[in-house]
């Protein structure tokens, strides 16, 4: 059972790796420049020069998908990473210090979770009007909470362990204990949580972009590409279907990977 899970994780992980590599080396793989418009090749069907066809301005869809993936995936990972850092930090403080700081921070977290997340994100991103950065701030407001809660509860259970009391008796400082004992033990559950957040974050970010609250044109991004090309889907369906397909593929791969890793960790204990 665990062996099978492990191979599945490896295969899905490899697929995720391929997506990441394709996006990182977009400059090498992309057949054309994603921003060069070509008046002679407007809404051209897929051919040898343009494997995924061209869009309304004669830009190569494949190149735009590759470069757009850079924007989407980089923003997603950056946002998840920041929430991971902020949430872990806050959660560890709450878990080790306790007292009023813990109560205050957890209260704030509770309140943030009692508002509809996407509604707040749309309003904040819309008012900030700051492109991708605004969209990331809008989603980040509530994203750190799940990390903070997880980090807090794990810190609290780790604190009961014998090695923590012996470290305290050995005269180690609180910071030292946090760095050497608590943080490394938190990594596995928090990393799993981060992995499951990737898909949701990508859905949220590309949704905001689709609404026009994300990237500022002409920057390539999957959500905004779909939104743009939707207007002429009858004439050039490939300009919608290509970014749609890669969005679905990426989200499916990362969601599946998150599920598998979670299952793997559950069967462990």
């Amino acid at each position, binding site marked *: 059972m665990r062996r099978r899970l492990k191979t599945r994780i490896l295969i899905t992980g490899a697929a995720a790796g391929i997506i990441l590599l394709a996006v990182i080396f977009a400059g090498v793989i992309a057949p054309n420049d994603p921003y060069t418009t070509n008046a002679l090749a407007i809404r051209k069907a897929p051919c040898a020069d343009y494997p995924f066809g061209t869009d309304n301005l004669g830009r190569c869809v494949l190149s735009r998908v590759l470069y757009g993936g850079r924007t989407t995936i980089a923003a997603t990972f950056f946002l998840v990473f920041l929430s991971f850092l902020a949430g872990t930090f806050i959660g560890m403080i709450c878990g080790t210090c306790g007292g009023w700081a813990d109560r205050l921070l957890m209260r704030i977290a509770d309140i943030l979770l009692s508002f509809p997340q996407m*509604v707040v994100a749309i309003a904040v991103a819309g008012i900030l009007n700051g492109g991708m950065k605004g969209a990331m701030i809008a989603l980040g407001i509530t994203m750190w909470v799940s990390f903070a809660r997880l980090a807090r509860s794990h810190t609290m259970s780790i604190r009961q362990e014998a090695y923590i009391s012996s470290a305290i008796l050995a005269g180690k400082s609180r910071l030292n204990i946090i760095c050497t004992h608590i943080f490394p033990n938190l990594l596995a559950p928090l990393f799993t949580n981060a992995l499951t957040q990737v898909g949701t974050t990508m859905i949220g970010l590309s949704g905001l972009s689709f609404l*026009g609250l994300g990237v500022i044109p002409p920057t390539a991004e999957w959500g905004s590409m779909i939104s743009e090309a939707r207007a002429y889907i009858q004439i050039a369906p490939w300009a919608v279907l290509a970014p749609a397909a890669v969005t679905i593929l990426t989200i499916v791969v990362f969601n599946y990977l998150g599920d598998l890793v979670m299952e793997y960790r559950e069967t462990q204990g």
Partner: protein
Amino acid sequence: MKRSLSTGRKGRNDNVTRIVRWGKNLIRLIFILIILSFLVFALLYLAPGDPAEKRLTSQGIAVTKEVLDAERERLGLFRPFLVRYGEWLLGVFRGDFGVSFRDDLPVAPKLAAGLQKTVQLASASLLLSLIFSFPLAVLAAWKKDRVPDHIVCLLSFFGNSLPNFLISVLLMYLLCIRMRVFPVIASGSLQGLFMPVISLAIPMTGRFIRQMRAEFLVQLSEDYVAGMRRRGVKERYLILNVIRNSLGHILTIIALQIGTLMGGSVVIENIFRWPGIGKLVMESITARDYPVIMGFVLIMGTIYVAVNQLADICFHALDPRGQA
């Protein structure tokens, strides 16, 4: 608080504890709503520039120092922040959400008209996705790790991984352009309701199945189920008992999903030009019409908070252990 409850004579009067709990719920609700309203009012100050400036720019008037100061005076911006917040809140209580920056018309009727349309759309998709997800979740939990479970889980996984804007774009492509079942631009008829409802319902069904299945599985692993099985109780009755005992949790799951539904309906309304509150808010964001945006967040937030509070009350009411 917990301590004072447990040291009191046990079972003295359950009504008292219930009233105390309701009171606590109510205080919590009011507290959260006050914070919500405060944050919504602060939204106005999130972007650079004060309301007078925003109002003038959104109306396309050239901003000079004199015009700006006159406008500030007229809007009462020289008074303290908290006073203005209080006045705004008082107005909201009376159903007055201010006047639109764009056309100087009161915001409340616009929001009400949009909300009505959005509620139609949202409740239709909620109903549709419950009709599908509930039986499928029961089936999957009952046949755990067998073929029906795998199929349902796979479907739910894909539903969960599809952003709703993608579903609607793909549906449009398939049904309107490829198969020509529907006209590309549908009016507000039943036919026009079909595609937005489906687009909202598919991801929601995926999430519902996943969460409900997990909840049923928790119930199925309880001792009472094992006991019933040993006593030879028919599976039919066993399932009915399990469903009865998970109802509270399922209500909570549904209430939490309403937040996602609200965000999703903004996207869907804009794609299908459904004249709901989500379409209104996107138009207002482009026009920098702050009173509408604030009203939108306040209304949606209040509905969400109230629905979840209600679900919490129902959760306790449905739990027979609380009444014993």
